[in-house]
């Protein structure tokens, strides 16, 4: 549970980073008041030709983003312009959109929604034909023509973000400083490198606390499950413990045997849990909608294993010690 939850939170961030890097831009310009995961209000796309005229700017292109549900959105792009910046989309099937009601989706979205070129999806209260499925890693999961999205969301002539490519990435800071000094001081202007580095657990508001709460709940629930399981297991094995006592096993030896067994169980449980994260990832990729991505988090494996071990050993110690002190005759007559 812990590994899956941490994996999902990290997977979403890593996917965001990968897609941001896939844009090929050096600078991102957002409206005033934008945050890492929210883009704020739209602004005029007339900024694009303005930006393209600035020193060291090779090209600029805008995007409009519209939420369509929990963790899912649709992005409007001028695809030919965007491809000039990011490089061509690699289509696994189909082609780029050519008509206003066509949409392209990435492979994850297609897998989660069982889509392929020629399928239809309903979005923004309309039916869209999927013209192609592209390799993931290009800014968004669902892309439609920019003009069409502007029209549908009453944002004609507006974009929410402008991506800027420079003649040389080494000039990034110089250009940012220049833009801020020339009438764009209120806009959020960041280097893409800076932006992607901000996509971390520590920089997303409340995510760190959320993960801490989830982990704490996992520890408490895990401890109680293990504690009650061990308590029941020890009760069920009262007669066996009586046999061990009759054979001359001391309470310390019985406790030792129980705790060793618990350790093996906890380790096996941890390995099973790790394997289940792969199953969970497959299930999320296959059945979950909304663009959830689960990363595999090997750095959390020892942490989760440690938590399982501590919980199991603490949970086993009390009933184990109680059982080891039992009267052997009472234990042997237990039914």
């Amino acid at each position, binding site marked *: 549970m812990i590994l899956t939850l941490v994996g999902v939170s990290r997977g979403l961030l890593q996917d965001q980073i990968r897609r941001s890097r896939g844009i090929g831009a050096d600078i991102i310009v957002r409206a005033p008041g934008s945050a890492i995961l929210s883009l704020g209000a739209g602004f005029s796309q007339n900024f694009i030709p303005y930006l393209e005229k600035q020193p060291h700017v090779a090209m600029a292109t805008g995007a409009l983003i519209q939420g369509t549900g929990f963790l899912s959105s649709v992005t409007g792009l001028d695809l030919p312009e965007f491809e000039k910046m990011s490089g061509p989309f690699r289509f696994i099937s189909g082609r780029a959109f050519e008509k206003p009601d066509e949409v392209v989706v990435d492979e994850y979205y297609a897998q989660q929604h069982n889509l392929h070129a020629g399928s239809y999806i309903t979005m923004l209260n309309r039916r869209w034909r999927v013209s192609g499925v592209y390799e993931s890693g290009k800014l968004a999961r669902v892309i439609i023509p920019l003009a069409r999205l502007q029209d549908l969301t009453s944002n004609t002539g507006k974009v929410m973000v402008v991506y800027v490519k420079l003649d040389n990435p080494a000039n990034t800071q110089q250009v940012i400083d220049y833009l801020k000094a020339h009438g764009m001081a209120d806009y959020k202007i960041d280097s893409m490198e800076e932006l992607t580095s901000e996509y971390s657990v520590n920089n997303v508001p409340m995510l760190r606390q959320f993960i801490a709460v989830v982990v704490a709940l996992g520890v408490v629930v895990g401890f109680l499950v293990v504690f009650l399981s061990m308590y029941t297991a020890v009760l069920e094995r009262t007669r066996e413990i009586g*046999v061990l006592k009759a*054979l*001359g096993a001391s309470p310390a030896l019985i406790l030792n045997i129980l705790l060793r067994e618990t350790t093996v169980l906890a380790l096996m449980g941890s390995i099973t849990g790790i394997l289940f994260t792969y199953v969970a990832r497959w299930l999320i990729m296959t059945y979950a909608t909304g663009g959830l991505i689960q990363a595999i988090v090997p750095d959390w494996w020892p942490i989760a294993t440690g938590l399982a071990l501590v919980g199991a050993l603490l949970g086993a110690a009390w009933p184990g010690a109680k059982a080891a002190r039992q*009267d052997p005759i009472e234990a042997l007559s237990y039914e």
Partner: protein
Amino acid sequence: MNDALILSVRGLRKVYRVGDVDVNALRGVDLDVKRGEFVSVIGPSGSGKSTLFNILGGLTPPTSGTVLLDGNDLLAMSDRQRTNLRKRTIGFVFQKYNLLPTLTARDNIEIARYIARHDGEPDPHFNDVLKLLGIENRLDHKPRALSGGEQQRVAIARGIVNHPAILLADEPTGNLDTENSNTVLTLLRDLNQRLNQTILMITHNPEAAAFGHRIVSMRDGRIVHTTATELTPKQPELFP
């Protein structure tokens, strides 16, 4: 204690407290068992034979009296000392076999050696014992795959693997049919005769009791009479 005696009991009393009432389970038992003897203790329910078994096995302390088992005074021993005594001096065979269900027959025998801290392989003669018990080909099976008779034979092997001074058997045929009962009783008698294994068997069945050299009858917490059977203790017939 006479060197020939493995067990000497004098004036043994055991009082249980049940609620506010004292229950006299044993009311002054005197009993001697010689080394190599096979003694059957017989009596109806409530006669005190199981209490006697528990005290002789060091599973519960006596209230008063003297119990000398292989030179150890059970009345003077602490719980820990009695636990240690059970490791090597006493072997148990129970009515319900009491094998550990998750272990194979071999491991059920081995765990008794492990608890007694016997390292290495069992002595070569023990393989002959396993053959005698007829379980040498059943050792890798778990108890659920064994018949009742086989389980009891594994329990006997576990009981004697540490060469105890005395093997205590509590109704060893109580859960078995006639054929398996005869097999188990014959095996106990063979073990007694071939290995000179001292055995004290609790039973309520007179036919089973007749497999011993001597039948001790109990009633109301006392030994009421002792009868010698036609069998006599033999000199040990060691395995080659």
